[in-house]
């Protein structure tokens, strides 16, 4: 009975009593959810176009942020550094496709997956070798990202909105809108969707798979860079960030590996869900720190009962 009250009654009483706390938690969950979404989006892009589960996506986030900070530290102005970092990501995409994807095409999936683990280690070692392994501060103000916060009075309390969080939400939304436009309105975008559907048929109409792969790896790199900047702006640029990237896995299970809207909604659900659960159920019942595993439990439940995820692409099959 005691437990029943703890699970089903008290959390909602607290929510009703302190609406500002609820809103604050929702907002924070939303912001971290956006970042999960961005990381998951990188996975989905590559998975859709090449069927490769890119284990290196997490480290690409760190590598991109590290490159940006590292180039800036060499005395390059911030926006030039940003452009150079994009160049590095394009180069990375080209190298991965030429050296890994192309020689291994038509090999079993597991071999391509293993090769992305290899890429992970190369990026970790390479990043440390070139830029050093110690945590660095993101060049937030230099890039013109806002700092400070605004308060909003609600029901006797206040909700604090960090400006960087608002900026993160806006930038992520712009990036996603940009990608959606690119996919639906451009010739290359249409070719990308074609490759995702049937790469044999795409080859037969003269679409170059190699070119498409470079495009998606670069797009995943841009998404990784964005996620890296926004995430590191709240903490630091360090290799510990890649652990956060592992949270993208439950997001993918939830949203479906092939669905871009799924990655976004999945990220938000996980982000908001883990913050709410931790505050209202985790702390009173389990003594807190549920955030690190909550997402994985959700993923497990999904794997058991709905393995294609919320938005996983339905197989269209004619009988």
């Amino acid at each position, binding site marked *: 009975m005691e437990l029943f009250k703890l699970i089903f009654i008290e959390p909602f009483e607290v929510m009703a009593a302190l609406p500002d706390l609820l809103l604050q938690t929702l907002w924070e969950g939303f912001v971290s959810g956006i970042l999960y979404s961005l990381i998951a989006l990188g996975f989905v892009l590559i998975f859709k176009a090449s069927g490769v589960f890119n284990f290196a996506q997490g480290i690409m986030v760190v590598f991109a942020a590290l490159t940006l900070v590292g180039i800036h530290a060499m005395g390059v102005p911030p926006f030039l550094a940003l452009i150079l970092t994009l160049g590095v990501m394009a180069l990375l995409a080209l190298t991965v496709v030429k050296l890994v994807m192309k020689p291994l095409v*038509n090999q079993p999936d597991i071999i391509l997956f293993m090769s992305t683990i290899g890429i992970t280690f190369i990026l970790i070692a390479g990043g440390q070798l070139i830029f050093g392994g110690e945590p660095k501060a993101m060049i937030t103000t230099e890039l013109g990202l806002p700092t400070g916060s605004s308060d909003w009075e609600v029901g006797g309390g206040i909700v604090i909105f960090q400006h960087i969080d608002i900026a993160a939400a806006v930038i992520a939304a712009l990036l996603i809108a940009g990608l959606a436009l690119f996919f639906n309105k451009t*010739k290359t975008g*249409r*070719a990308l*969707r*074609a490759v*995702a*559907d*049937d*790469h*044999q*048929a*795409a*080859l*037969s*109409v*003269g*679409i*170059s798979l190699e070119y498409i792969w470079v495009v998606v790896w670069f797009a995943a790199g841009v998404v990784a860079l964005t996620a890296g900047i926004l995430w590191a702006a709240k903490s630091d640029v360090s290799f510990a960030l890649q652990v956060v990237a592992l949270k993208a896995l439950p997001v993918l299970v939830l949203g479906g590996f092939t669905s871009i809207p799924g990655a976004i909604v999945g990220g938000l659900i996980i982000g908001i869900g883990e913050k709410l659960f931790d505050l209202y159920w985790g702390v009173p019942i389990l003594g807190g720190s549920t955030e690190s595993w909550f997402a994985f439990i959700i993923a497990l439940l999904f794997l058991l009962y709905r393995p294609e995820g919320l938005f996983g*692409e339905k197989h*269209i099959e*004619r009988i």
Partner: protein
Amino acid sequence: MSVAEKLKPETAETILSVNNIEVIYNHVILVLKGVSLTVPKGGIVALLGANGAGKTTTLRAVSNLLRGERGEVTKGDIIFNGEEIQDLTPNELVQRGCIQVMEGRHCFGHLSIEDNLMTGAYTRKDGAAAIKDHLDLVYQYFPRLKERRKSQAGYTSGGEQQMCAIGRALMSKPSMILLDEPSMGLAPQLVEEIFEIVRDLNQKENVSFLLAEQNTNIALKYATYGYILESGRVVMDGDAKELRENEDVKEFYLGTGGDGRKSFKDVKHYRRRKRWLA
């Protein structure tokens, strides 16, 4: 000059010639054992044979889609419009005007019909206006596609998907289409409709066709010349009309032996074994 003579590969201008090619899958499985054939400019050539005879492999060898299936051409050469093409990528080949419509349609299921057609124009560099005009032309040949242009291709009927696949290939402005098993899984009436369109395209748009078909009857009705493949070799070739009247072809592929239609099980055992290879 009679029609048959005019269409003889040696006399007419050729667009495609395949010379004695050998294809090996996975480095060990020899599938084509020296296949040669020619397609005259503006012709419809049928490639006939049973399952596993090597029809699809021949088409894939030409369109360079073998690599994706771990196959390779190990001997012989393939010449399209006077140029050796074995080492080109499918992309380069489509740009030169030779495109394959794969067996089983292979439409992009999640793309709309119109988007499917537009992917066919991927390699074109002659501008959006020309592509738009060409799209209208494709819709003229396939009015049904126009009606369904906004539908996801995966949810359209088999016939519509076949039309979509052919229309998509047309969008690349090809001079030659390699058509693999267009009749597969379609109602006889639809098969007829598709072949009528193929003939139309051949005559009005001057597209040459090399088509692989199991439906020997209809293929020989529309083709000008035919090759019969068996176990990776060409065992017979000739004018479509000649082939239609050949006793062996009648017996083995058309099911209408000397004394009218009969079941394959009534064919004398030694004849069945013999085929043309024994």
